[in-house]
């Protein structure tokens, strides 16, 4: 167990930035701290680094309690969002900085810097100053500088935030490869769920200073612990249904009541891919008009509108869409194959389906 947080909190004045967070990161893992801005994820990262002191709880790195150990002595590598390169120093001097402080021998420093320049594809750029580099190169210098003194943990704060989309993609893949090669325990902060899903072994999801869920990308996507996670990871259609005459209803749609008494509300959510569409009007139970088509590449995003004005968002692969042969304005039929119960109001019966568990239907609704 490389890093462990036990009930860690941080308060800035009256603001509770982090509240009672507990999780562990294993040696060699690549973990994402994910959440909306202001969720407390950067504060957690800074506490692990020692740039902030927890106001409650305990923090362990490799079994040692770190709360009162200064940032200088924690042996961590930190990559800042804005890179924070030393602009008065060349690339070489930047990378060598931590080694000089650790009093490495000059020959060893030279060798280590050469090794890192090569590993990071920065050969020939050693003499340049940071302002002479592109965004992607600066990013790599920042990571090389953090890794130079062989830290036990690498921490990255929004590492891909400041570069453009194409370089971003390259950097993501590169980080995964780098982690594979070096196998250093890595934690990075991001607000981009796609990035977290793609890059990490495990994801820790925060919102408003609290830990919402921790799990593999697949876990958090397929088995979200609550409505927040379900909505934050991927797209979710949320419906608020009213129970009338033994059916939970909203406009044309009706679902089982799941134990919600008459007159109360049931919230359900479903993923766009859970919606099946047919150009045959009689094939599925509900009818809708195809309002908008958004082209996303391999996928298309469709917006359906039922006769009573309810909007349903779906996703469909290009081949499937071509097979349907429909255009904007077309009349279609649809059904919902699986959904999740998000909350039940006034539920007096024992819950037949736990909150947030997936309801799969052979027939569709």
């Amino acid at each position, binding site marked *: 167990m490389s890093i462990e947080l036990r009930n860690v909190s941080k308060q800035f004045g009256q603001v509770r930035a982090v509240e009672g967070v507990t999780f562990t990161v294993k040696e060699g893992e690549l973990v994402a701290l994910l959440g909306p801005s202001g969720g407390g994820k950067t504060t957690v990262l800074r506490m692990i680094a020692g740039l902030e002191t927890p106001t409650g709880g305990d923090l362990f790195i490799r079994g040692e309690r770190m709360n009162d150990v200064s940032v200088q002595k924690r042996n961590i590598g930190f990559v800042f969002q804005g890179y*924070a390169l030393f602009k008065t120093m060349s690339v070489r001097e930047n990378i060598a900085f931590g080694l000089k402080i650790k009093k490495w021998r000059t020959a060893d420093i030279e060798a280590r810097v050469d090794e890192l320049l090569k590993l990071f594809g920065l050969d020939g750029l050693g003499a340049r100053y940071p302002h002479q580099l592109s965004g992607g190169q600066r990013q790599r210098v920042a990571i090389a500088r953090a890794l130079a003194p062989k830290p036990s943990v690498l921490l990255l704060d929004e590492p891909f935030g400041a570069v453009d989309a194409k370089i971003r993609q390259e950097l993501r893949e590169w980080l995964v490869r780098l982690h594979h090669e070096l196998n250093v325990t890595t934690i990075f902060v991001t607000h981009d769920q796609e990035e977290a899903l793609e890059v990490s072994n495990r994801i820790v999801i925060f919102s408003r200073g609290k830990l919402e869920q921790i799990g593999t990308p697949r876990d958090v996507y397929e088995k979200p612990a609550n409505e927040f996670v379900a909505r934050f990871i991927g797209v979710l259609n949320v419906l608020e249904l009213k129970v009338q005459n033994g059916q939970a209803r909203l406009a044309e749609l009706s679902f089982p009541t799941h134990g919600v008494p008459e007159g109360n509300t049931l919230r359900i959510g479903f993923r766009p891919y859970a919606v099946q569409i047919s150009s045959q009007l009689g094939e599925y139970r509900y009818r809708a008009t195809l309002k908008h088509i958004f082209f996303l590449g391999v996928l298309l995003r469709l917006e359906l509108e039922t006769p009573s004005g309810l909007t349903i968002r779906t996703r469909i692969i290009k081949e499937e869409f071509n097979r349907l042969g429909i255009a904007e304005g077309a009349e279609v039929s649809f059904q919902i194959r699986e959904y999740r119960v998000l909350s039940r109001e006034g539920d007096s019966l024992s819950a037949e389906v736990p909150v947030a568990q997936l309801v799969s239907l052979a027939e569709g609704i």
Partner: protein
Amino acid sequence: MAFKKPSPLPGFGLSLGYTVFYLSLIVLIPLGALFFRVVTHIGFEDFWKLATSTRAVASYKLTFGASFIAAVINAIFGTLLAWVLTRYTFPGRRLLDALVDFPFALPTAVAGLTLADLFSERGWLGQFLVPMGIKVAYTSLGVIVALTFIGMPFIVRTLQPVLENLEREVEEAAATLGAGRLRTFWSVVLPTLMPALLTGFALSFARAIGEYGSVVFIAGNKHSESEITPLLIFLRLEEYDYTGAMAIAVVMLLFSFVLLIGINLLERWASRFQN
């Protein structure tokens, strides 16, 4: 023109013409005239004799020496002052910040008078210092005090914007790499400040070399001891010794010119990471 770059704002030719004309009118023509007159009216031997008299040499030493020491003092304590004013918030910070400009606004004669009174034998500070053997008023030490006073705002005001733009993250990055506070300041912060610090130093130094008003009140103006060069020029003029005054003036001109060029080169070296 080959070095003309396309720009959304037109008028490179016009503005360059204006710049050259303005600089000529204000700076180059008067200085050139002085130089020209000395060259044409005084032979080299006469010039050398006038410019290197013991009294003149003593005044150069005092003027440049005291100005240099004052600028160094300002560079150290002005940096500290600027640091405190930009890094911390405390009650009265704005007032303190406004006070920095005081030496700019105050007529230098008032400053000189105040300082002379403060450090005289019966003055608030002088009554303690004089018995201890520290004589400030009417000595070369007084010259340094006056020059420090008038040069202080230059350092503070040139450093403040640079200090405000310093990224905190850079200092944190140094800390995560194991650097303590002193090391972070010395290897990371100070090199970043260096170009601005040198600019402030040059301005403070140049201002001190040219200072007259405040110094003459506190220096006592003793022959070859606490007599600054600008005063000597003034005295020569009062004696209707125009050539003598001009010879000394030209020496000052050359000295100042060489010093400023030197500082400029140093500044360029210190900011090599930006170009």
